[in-house]
């Protein structure tokens, strides 16, 4: 099983814009290579792995980027232990993109391929960025299309909602995005982003069943497969401000609002602070507060089987508050060798994630009455260690 299953391609589309849209529209992105080791540990789940991102210009107008990413998953999370047993798995992803600069317009196109034992996805994306008004304004548009194949699974759980009856299901994703970046003053930048996504097909995780009250069961409840709607449309809008502080530091804040046709409304507030200590060392601190309301068909415990057309007990669709605090340090150096390397940075980043679920109970803990178990909380450590160099 993959923790990422049904929402993966939603991330891939975002990653597409993350990789293709970063930078400005009047110059190509810088040539650089990053080598990352990432590690997530929390709630019985460990996901770690390497990632390498290489970017190089060819001539004056073209820049090509390739990224390899790997997740090595070792999971004994609450979802896994509820109905199965701990497992290990690997997911790999390849991302290739090309940027073409013409005047002050940047065109980008790319493709992402991700594969793991029970999920394959392909995403193509296009974006255009235009710099204007004395380079004070940058406007960008993007579109991505994803095709996923949810396959036969090998942990004893069979995917039941088949579209074509031959053992697998499909999911399709389309994303439209638009963004504006505006220089407000010598020290202040504004960023506005808007994104809409449409998804259809098999959109749930087959490994997160729902539970209903069952007086005939020892535990007082029984599990059955969830049934999610076969379409989902979401929209998100965000605003971000970044300000240069007179003592050579930067502070930023952002807000994002998200809503979708599954009834989820989510808010994200972020703050960040960057402080260079000297020419070599830079420190960063960040705080992110996120809260969401549950999907309208979500329930931790249904009164009986088939009480609703659509059901879900996936905690990603539950009501919860989450706080993430982060710290990072970066060291810049100028290696003498190889001579074609301009500069390098060594970076370490740590984030502590805490989630308080408000309508997802920890069913692994004992309780006389089902649904009365303590509410589940999650604490996780997220670490990143990466080396970057420019040439």
């Amino acid at each position, binding site marked *: 099983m993959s923790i990422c299953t049904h*929402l*993966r391609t939603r*991330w891939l*589309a*975002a990653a597409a*814009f*993350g*990789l293709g*849209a*970063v930078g400005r529209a*009047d*110059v190509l992105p810088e040539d650089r290579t*990053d080598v*990352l080791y*990432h590690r997530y540990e929390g709630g019985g789940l460990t996901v770690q792995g390497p990632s390498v*991102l290489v970017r190089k210009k060819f001539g004056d107008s073209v820049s090509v980027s390739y*990224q390899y990413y790997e997740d090595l998953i070792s999971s004994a999370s609450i979802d896994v232990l509820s109905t199965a047993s701990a497992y290990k798995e690997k997911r790999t992803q390849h991302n290739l993109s090309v940027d073409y600069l013409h005047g002050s317009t940047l065109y980008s196109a790319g493709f992402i391929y991700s594969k793991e034992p029970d999920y394959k996805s392909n995403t193509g994306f296009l974006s255009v960025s235009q*710099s*204007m*008004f*004395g380079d*004070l*304004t940058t*406007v960008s548009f993007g579109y991505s299309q994803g095709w996923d194949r949810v396959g036969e699974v090998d942990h004893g759980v069979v995917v039941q909602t088949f579209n074509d009856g031959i053992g697998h299901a499909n999911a399709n994703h389309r*994303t439209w*995005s*638009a963004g*504006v*970046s505006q220089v407000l003053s*010598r020290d202040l*930048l504004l*960023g506005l982003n*808007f*994104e809409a996504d449409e998804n259809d097909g098999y959109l749930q995780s087959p490994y997160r069943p729902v539970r209903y009250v069952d007086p005939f069961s020892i535990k007082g409840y029984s599990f059955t497969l969830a049934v999610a709607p076969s379409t989902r449309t979401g*929209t*998100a*809008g*965000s605003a*971000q401000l*970044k300000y*240069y502080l007179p003592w*050579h530091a*930067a502070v*930023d804040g952002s807000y*994002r*609002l*998200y*809503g979708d046709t599954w009834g*989820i409304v*989510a808010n994200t507030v972020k703050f960040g602070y960057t402080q260079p200590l000297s020419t070599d060392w*830079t420190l960063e601190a960040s705080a992110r507060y*996120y809260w*969401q309301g549950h*999907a309208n068909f979500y329930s931790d415990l249904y009164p009986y089987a088939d009480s609703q057309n659509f059901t879900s007990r996936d905690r*990603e669709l539950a009501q919860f508050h*989450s706080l*993430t605090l982060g710290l990072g340090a970066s060291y810049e150096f100028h290696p003498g060798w190889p001579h074609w390397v301009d500069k390098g940075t060594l*970076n370490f980043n740590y984030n502590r994630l805490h989630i308080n679920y408000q309508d997802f109970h920890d069913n692994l803990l004992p309780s006389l009455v089902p649904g009365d178990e303590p509410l589940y909380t999650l604490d996780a450590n997220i670490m*990143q260690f990466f080396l*970057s160099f420019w040439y």
Partner: protein
Amino acid sequence: MRRILLGGVLLGGFLLGGTLMSGCSPIQPWVKPYEREHLADPIMSFDRNPISSVYLDHVFETREGARGATGSVGGGCGCN
């Protein structure tokens, strides 16, 4: 309703940008290219290390119901 509002705000932004871009704008860029020293500083970039920010976005998106609208472009030194 919310979404129409969001779309409207952005549409307004683009139309304004388009007007400002065209030759008939009475407003001149209020930050000259030689005044962009602070904006050119790497710490003022919205996304200094894409490999790291994309990874963190992924960590959140696979645990949350919301997705999207996380990136931004622009700012910078205004060179070339």
